[in-house]
């Protein structure tokens, strides 16, 4: 009895302490993301302000994606408290039960597209797949739509598409058939594959990483390509003769999860709530071209108006693009990817 009282007392004291003062600095969580300039931007936009606000230490690591999380969770060796993934990976991992449930009493989901708000994962930022072309080859009369990209007579030249992201290439292939942006999803996979088949013989490289896509365009190995907007922006800023726009872009979301078995679940939940808050979300486009997932970020006044038009998830730009549907790919990815591989390797 006294023992129980004692425990109650301790718990109460602990609760009081956690309410009265910020969590002690000894509280440490580990967050994994994709590394590179993107993670540096996240550090400045999300991680540092959150660590300061909550009085915790945020350690960082880098991830290769869903298989890393699967390895940690199924191997009972979870070392991350929060990790970033692509939205279709979140949808698949959720189906496999790899993540902790999120507490939306702690995390405020308002402002985030409902398609990116789920029991165990939440959207964090957007990347766009855009069409880039070299202006030293085409001037300003380059291919502007995916139908142009597919039109090898009107726009002769070397081409690259993503060979590793079947989801993205199939989405742009659907656009190339003339399907309007709001009708692309659910993707008619066989139709999209037929579309890929038409352009396949004219593709000089199927890129497998963002860096490779950038290198192919930068060195003039190809004259036009599908590319992630962050990489396209970097190319343009470095002075490369390129042009791209968000017209017919494919908006793909990134998401964050708490891997199942995280030892600091509660602090991770609080940190995640901070990451998706409009205030910190508005920081992200100040450092990198990946747009915030929370559209309320654009109402904070933190983002300069002239910057807003360059952000892929700004309401004006969202209207021009297809939003990739993670739930669709959760159920079709394996089959679609195998068919896609069969096609491009023929």
């Amino acid at each position, binding site marked *: 009895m006294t023992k129980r009282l004692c425990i109650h007392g301790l718990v109460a004291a602990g609760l009081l302490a956690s309410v009265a003062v910020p969590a002690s600095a000894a509280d440490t969580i580990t967050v994994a993301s994709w590394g590179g300039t993107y993670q540096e931007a996240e550090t400045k936009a999300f991680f540092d302000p959150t660590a300061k606000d909550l009085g915790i230490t945020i350690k960082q690591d880098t991830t290769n994606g869903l298989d890393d999380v699967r390895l940690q969770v199924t191997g009972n060796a979870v070392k991350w408290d929060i990790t970033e993934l692509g939205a279709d990976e979140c949808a698949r991992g959720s189906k496999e039960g790899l993540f902790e449930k999120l507490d939306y009493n702690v995390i405020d989901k308002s402002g985030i597209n409902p398609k990116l708000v789920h029991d165990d994962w939440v959207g964090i930022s957007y990347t766009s797949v855009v069409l880039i072309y070299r202006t030293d080859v085409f001037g300003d009369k380059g291919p502007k739509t995916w139908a142009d990209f597919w039109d090898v007579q009107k726009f002769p030249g070397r081409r690259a598409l993503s060979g590793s992201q079947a989801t993205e290439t199939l989405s742009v292939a659907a656009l190339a058939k003339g399907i309007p942006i709001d009708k692309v999803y659910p993707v008619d996979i066989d139709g999209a594959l037929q579309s890929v088949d038409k352009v396949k013989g004219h593709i*000089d490289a199927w890129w497998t990483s963002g860096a490779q896509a950038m290198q192919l365009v930068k060195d003039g190995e190809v004259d036009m390509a599908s590319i992630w907007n962050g990489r396209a922006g970097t190319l343009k800023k470095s002075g490369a003769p390129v042009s791209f726009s968000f017209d017919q872009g494919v908006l793909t979301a990134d998401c964050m999860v708490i891997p199942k078995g995280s030892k600091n679940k509660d602090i991770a939940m609080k940190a995640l709530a901070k990451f998706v808050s409009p205030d910190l979300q508005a920081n992200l486009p100040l450092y990198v071209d990946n747009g915030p997932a929370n559209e309320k970020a654009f109402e904070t006044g933190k983002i300069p108006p002239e910057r807003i038009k360059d952000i892929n998830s700004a309401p004006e730009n969202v209207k021009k693009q297809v939003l990739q549907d993670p739930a669709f790919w959760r159920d079709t990815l394996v089959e679609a990817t*195998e068919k896609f591989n069969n096609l491009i*390797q023929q």
Partner: protein
Amino acid sequence: MSIVSASLDHAGGPDGALNGDALNADARREARGLFALLSPGLFLVFAVIIVPIGWLFWLSLFDESGQLSAANYARFFEQASYIKTFVTTFKVAFIVTGACVLFGYPLAYMLSQLPRRAASICLIFVILPFWTSVLVRTYAWLVILQRKGLVNTWLMDLGVIGQPLPLANNFAGVVIGMTHIMLPFLVLPLYASMKTIDVDCLRAGMNLGASPAATFRQIFFPLSLPGLASGVVIVFVLCLGFFVTPALMGGGKVIMWAMRMEQTTSLYSNWGAGAALGVVLLAVTLALLGLFHWLLGARATGVWSRR
């Protein structure tokens, strides 16, 4: 040593059976001693190679719902791209190994004939790229070979070609890049074996009236074959599992088995899908090694009988 002492004690003794027993007992004791010495190494091999491979094989037998099934293997036949990848992998490995022999044999021969000092300096040039990251070397090849790379720019400026040659982001690029990376693996064992060839054998041949070409063909070349064989086996097996260079130089059009493993591992939720690829590659590699061994065994006997 114990065998020697045992045989000395009983040498020429009247009791032959007793002698034999003692010898056998000694031999057994020695075998046990040797086994005890070997056991830490054997244990390590067992723990870090045999067990994981066994586990990999075990995993490959389960499908995504965790049921025992052959789905992971059936996939290779259902999806055309796996067979294609498999064929590509062996095609690349054969061609790269061939190119390595073509370039590596003369190089190793030259090195073996140079004075020791000059040979050491030249060897440094062979080994130096060996110490540079594969990634760096592959990117360097990309800079050299791509459409607006060094080779094409020079050749176009000199008017040798009108259109850039397709050297990167295709099969040719993969072969060039991999040959460069694999060359030391062939040259080093080959050079080592060429250095052990007894010069007196060559002299004897010449002395008996063989021309330099005949001496090379009938004496030097056969004696260098074991070194060549080990080089070829190392290069071939390394090629089968190569990832970085084909991934960067192939432009996504040359998909090798290791790249496929990476893809499959992240695509499927069960480890078995990727594990099955590993099992197949291992089995085929072992079968090929067996074939090599058998062929070379026959070859070596041929050499001996000719001598």
